[in-house]
C-alpha cells in the first residue's frame, strides 16, 4: 500500500508519468516490451564487460612494459658492474703487469657487450642513440685496454700508467654517466607507467561502478515503467467494471496503451456500449410492456365495468318479467287458460335461467376484476349444509333420489363467507342431483388440522377422466348436449373454484364413468380477515 503510494507520487510528480504513457502508447505487445527492456539492460551489462576487458588488456600491456623497464634497469646495473670490474681489472693489470688480468678485462668486456646487446635489443628506439654512445665509449675503453695490453707486453709501461689510467677513468666516467642517464630515463618511464596503470585502475573502477549503477537504475526504471504501463489500465478496468456492474453503461476506459491492454480496453468499451444498447432496448421494451399492461388493465377494467353494469341493467327488466310471469302463473290477473299454462312455465323457466346466467357472469366479472371481496362471518357448518339440503330436497325427492348428509356432531363454529360457501355447495349438490337419475346424493363434512373438507358424492353418470381436468373451466360441461339436457350455466363450478380459492382452499373431483362422481373442497376452518388471493390482479 505504501509502496503503491510512492508509485503514484512518482507517476504524478515526475516526468516518469509521461514515460509510462509513452511506453503504454508503443504499438507493440507486452512481451515485446518486456524483452526490449531486458535487452537494453543486457546490452548495458555487455558494454560494461567490454570496457572492463579493454581496461584489463591495457593495464596488462603497461605492466609488461614496466617489467621490461625493470629488466633493462637490471641490465644497466649489470653493465655498471661489468664496467666496475673492468676498471678493477685494468687497475690490477697495471699493477701486476701481467696479461692474465688483460684476459679478465676482455672477459668483462664480453659480458658488458652481451648485456649491452640485450639492452639494445629490448630497448626502446629512442634509447638506441644512448646505447650506441655507450657502445662507442666502451670501444674507446677497449682501445685504452689494448694500449694497456701492448704497453704491458712491451714492458714499456713506466710513464704510461698515469696517462692510461687517466684515459681509462675518463672513458669509464663517460660510460657510467650514460648508463646512469639510461637508468634515469627508464626509471622516469617506470614512474609514468605506474601512474598510468594506477589511473587505468581507478578509471576502470569508476566506470564499472557507474555502469553497474546505471544498469540497476535502468532495470528498475524499465520494471517500474512497464509494470505501471499495465497497472494503470488494470486499475481503470477495475473501476470500469465496478461502474458497469453498477449499471452505468456510459462508462468508458481511456488508456494510452496500444498493446494487449489497449485491445482489451477497446473490447471493454465495445462491451459497455453493447450492454448499454441492450439495456436501452430492454428498458424500452419494459416501458412498452408497462404501457401495454396499463392499457390492458384499463381495457380489462372497462370490460368488467361494462359487464357489471350490463348485468345490472339486464337484471332490472328481467326481474320485472319474472315478477309479472309469476303473478300470471299465480292467477293474480285471473285464471290462466289451460293451453297457456305450459308456455307460461317455459317463459318462467327461461327467464330464471337467463337470470342465473347474468348473475354468474356478474360474479365472474367481479372476480376477474379483483373486485370480489369475501364477507367473513361466523357460521355453523351444520346450518349451512342444512340450508342447502332444505333448498334441494324437493328436487331430489322429485327425482326419486336419496339425499343424505354426514356431519360430525362436535364441529366448532367456523368463519368464512357463508353466502359464497352456500353458493358453492348448492352448485355441487345441484349438479349432483342434476346428473343422477338413480341412487343417492350425499353431502359430507370432515374436520382435520383446522381445515374443513366438504364432499358431495353421487351415483350419477360420472365424468370421463380426460374431462375431469376441465370441469372447473368456464362454460365447460361435459358437452353441449348435457347443458341443454340438464340446464345450468356452465359457470357454476368455475365460480365455485374461485370462491374456494379466495378462502385459501382447493377444489377437486374424482369420478368413474357410470358409477358416479365425488367433488371435494377443502377450506380453513376459520378464514382470516386478510386473504391472499393470487389468481386475479387486485386492481381496486
Amino acid at each position: 500500500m505504501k509502496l503503491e503510494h510512492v508509485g503514484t507520487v512518482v507517476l504524478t510528480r515526475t516526468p516518469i508519468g509521461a514515460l509510462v504513457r509513452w511506453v503504454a502508447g508503443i504499438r507493440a505487445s507486452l512481451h515485446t516490451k518486456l524483452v526490449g527492456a531486458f535487452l537494453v539492460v543486457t546490452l548495458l551489462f555487455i558494454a560494461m564487460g567490454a570496457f572492463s576487458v579493454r581496461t584489463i588488456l591495457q593495464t596488462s600491456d603497461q605492466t609488461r612494459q614496466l617489467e621490461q623497464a625493470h629488466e633493462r634497469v637490471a641490465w644497466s646495473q649489470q653493465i655498471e658492474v661489468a664496467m666496475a670490474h673492468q676498471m678493477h681489472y685494468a687497475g690490477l693489470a697495471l699493477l701486476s703487469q701481467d696479461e692474465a688480468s688483460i684476459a679478465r678485462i676482455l672477459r668483462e668486456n664480453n659480458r658488458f657487450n652481451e648485456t649491452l646487446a640485450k639492452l639494445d635489443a629490448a630497448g626502446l628506439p629512442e634509447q638506441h642513440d644512448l646505447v650506441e654512445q655507450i657502445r662507442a665509449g666502451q670501444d674507446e675503453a677497449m682501445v685504452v685496454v689494448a694500449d694497456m695490453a701492448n704497453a704491458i707486453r712491451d714492458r714499456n709501461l713506466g710513464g704510461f700508467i698515469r696517462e692510461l689510467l687517466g684515459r681509462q677513468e675518463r672513458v669509464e666516467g663517460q660510460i657510467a654517466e650514460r648508463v646512469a642517464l639510461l637508468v634515469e630515463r627508464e626509471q622516469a618511464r617506470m614512474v609514468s607507467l605506474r601512474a598510468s596503470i594506477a589511473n587505468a585502475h581507478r578509471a576502470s573502477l569508476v566506470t564499472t561502478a557507474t555502469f553497474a549503477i546505471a544498469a540497476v537504475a535502468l532495470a528498475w526504471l524499465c520494471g517500474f515503467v512497464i509494470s505501471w504501463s499495465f497497472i494503470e489500465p488494470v486499475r481503470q478496468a477495475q473501476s470500469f467494471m465496478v461502474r458497469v456492474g453498477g449499471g452505468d453503461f456510459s462508462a468508458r476506459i481511456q488508456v494510452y496503451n496500444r498493446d494487449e491492454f489497449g485491445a482489451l480496453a477497446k473490447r471493454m468499451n465495445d462491451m459497455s456500449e453493447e450492454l448499454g444498447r441492450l439495456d436501452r432496448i430492454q428498458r424500452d421494451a419494459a416501458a412498452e410492456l408497462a404501457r401495454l399492461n396499463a392499457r390492458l388493465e384499463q381495457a380489462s377494467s372497462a370490460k368488467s365495468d361494462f359487464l357489471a353494469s350490463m348485468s345490472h341493467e339486464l337484471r332490472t327488466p328481467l326481474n320485472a318479467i319474472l315478477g309479472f310471469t309469476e303473478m300470471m302463473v299465480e292467477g293474480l290477473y285471473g285464471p290462466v287458460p289451460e293451453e297457456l299454462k305450459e308456455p307460461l312455465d317455459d317463459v318462467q323457466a327461461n327467464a330464471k335461467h337467463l337470470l342465473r346466467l347474468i348473475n354468474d357472469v356478474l360474479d365472474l366479472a367481479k372476480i376477474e376484476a379483483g373486485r370480489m371481496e369475501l364477507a367473513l362471518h361466523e357460521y355453523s357448518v351444520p346450518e349451512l349444509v342444512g340450508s342447502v339440503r332444505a333448498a334441494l330436497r324437493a328436487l331430489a325427492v322429485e327425482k326419486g333420489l336419496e339425499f343424505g348428509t354426514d356431519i360430525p356432531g362436535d364441529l366448532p363454529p367456523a368463519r368464512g363467507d357463508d353466502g359464497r360457501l352456500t353458493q358453492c355447495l348448492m352448485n355441487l349438490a345441484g349438479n349432483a342431483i342434476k346428473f343422477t337419475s338413480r341412487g343417492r346424493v350425499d353431502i359430507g363434512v370432515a374436520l382435520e388440522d383446522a381445515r374443513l373438507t366438504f364432499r358431495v358424492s353421487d351415483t350419477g353418470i360420472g365424468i370421463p377422466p380426460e374431462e375431469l381436468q376441465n370441469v372447473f373451466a368456464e362454460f365447460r360441461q361435459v358437452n353441449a348436449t348435457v347443458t341443454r339436457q340438464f340446464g345450468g350455466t356452465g359457470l357454476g363450478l368455475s365460480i365455485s373454484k374461485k370462491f374456494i380459492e379466495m378462502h385459501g382452499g382447493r377444489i377437486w373431483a374424482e369420478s368413474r364413468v357410470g358409477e358416479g362422481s365425488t367433488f371435494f373442497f377443502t377450506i380453513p376452518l376459520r378464514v382470516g380477515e386478510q386473504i391472499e388471493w393470487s389468481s386475479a390482479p387486485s386492481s381496486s
Partner: protein
Amino acid sequence: MEQRTILLIEDNEYNRKIVRRLLSRSSYRLLEAVDGEAGVAAALEERPDLILMDVQLPKMSGLDATRLLRADTRTKDIPIVVITSFALSGDREGAAEAGAAAYLAKPYSPAELLALVHRFLPE
C-alpha cells in the same frame, strides 16, 4: 282497524306496477315515490306504517334515505325493508348498518315480498 299505509320508494315503473298489483287485493294503502328525496319527503309527510326502499335510487340512494329517516324522530320507528338488485355480500351489512328492519334481495318472487309485508303488517 284503520287502513295501514305502505310507502314504496322505487324508480323502476314495472317494479312499482308489480307491487301495486300484488297489493291491489289487500287492504293496504300504497303510496309511491320515484326517487330518494321524494321518498323521504313522502315518509315525513305521511308517516307510513312500512317503507319498501329500493337501494339504487336517483337523487339519493336508498341507504342514505334509510339513514336519514332513522335519524329523524318522526320516522325512526317506521320499519324499513331495503330491496337491492345486487345479491352481493356487503349489501346485507350495508342495509343493517343503515338501520333497515329487513333486507330483500332481487330477484325476489312476488310471494316473498307479500310474505315480508305480512310479517310487519299482519292483515
